[in-house]
């Protein structure tokens, strides 16, 4: 699993790639919560996530709740097929804001 945080105009972009499982989800959780602590909207690029399990999903949910409390926009970008399968199974595809381009996210800031 790899992750990197980029500062974009008006928001932070967190790129996740590889397998987000029990071994790496604490790191992802820290990245998400750390980014939100900066007080900026957060967009998480999931195009290269090849596997995500419930521990990874839990990190995304915790980020969602933290962002909601802080009234910060929070979204998921270009979700890969394996990640979308898990979001659909857990019905979180109806809860998270999903985007197919960074422009879409920027427009609602």
């Amino acid at each position, binding site marked *: 699993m790899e992750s990197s945080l980029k500062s974009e105009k008006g928001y932070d972009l967190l790129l996740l790639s590889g397998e987000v*499982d*029990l*071994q790496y989800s604490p790191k992802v959780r820290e990245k998400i919560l750390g980014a939100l602590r900066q007080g900026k909207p957060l967009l998480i690029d999931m195009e290269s996530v090849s596997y995500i399990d419930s521990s990874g999903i839990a990190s995304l*949910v915790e980020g969602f*709740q933290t962002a909601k409390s802080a009234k910060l926009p929070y979204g998921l970008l270009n979700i890969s097929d394996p990640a979308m399968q898990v979001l659909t*199974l857990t019905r979180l595809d109806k809860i998270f804001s999903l985007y197919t381009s960074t422009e879409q996210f920027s427009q609602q800031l």
Partner: protein
Amino acid sequence: MTKKMQLLQLKFPARAEEMCTVRQKLREVLGTCSKSESTINCIVLAVGEACMNIIQHAYGSSEKGDIVLEVEKLGSDMIFRLRDFAKHKTCAKEMQSRPLDELRPGGLGCHIINEIMDEVQLIDCEKSCGNVLQMKKCLSPPKGQTG
């Protein structure tokens, strides 16, 4: 009579770091039984969630031990058996899905397992140490589709 075929028997330490290799081996075995990438992804996810339950809840942080994963094929059914040797006895209630309208991190693993697998059963092993979880998935494609 349909013959049961053992496709995999794997013993590994119950640690998060082992799971990447376990998933890879499971994926290889499943690739010989199904052409559907989506079905393979789902099964790998469900078995991974069941292993994670053992790591986090059966052994927990205070106990170390192994997991044995067995994969068998019986006709169009795939059977996945996970054995642990933990002191904790997993009960059926722990394997139930939680309501999804309750938005909170965690507790989604059992829901994922129950959604993906056709049968999920704790095998009674009262006299021995540990737990055995058996999950069954039928690989027959729905009518009108080829698998």
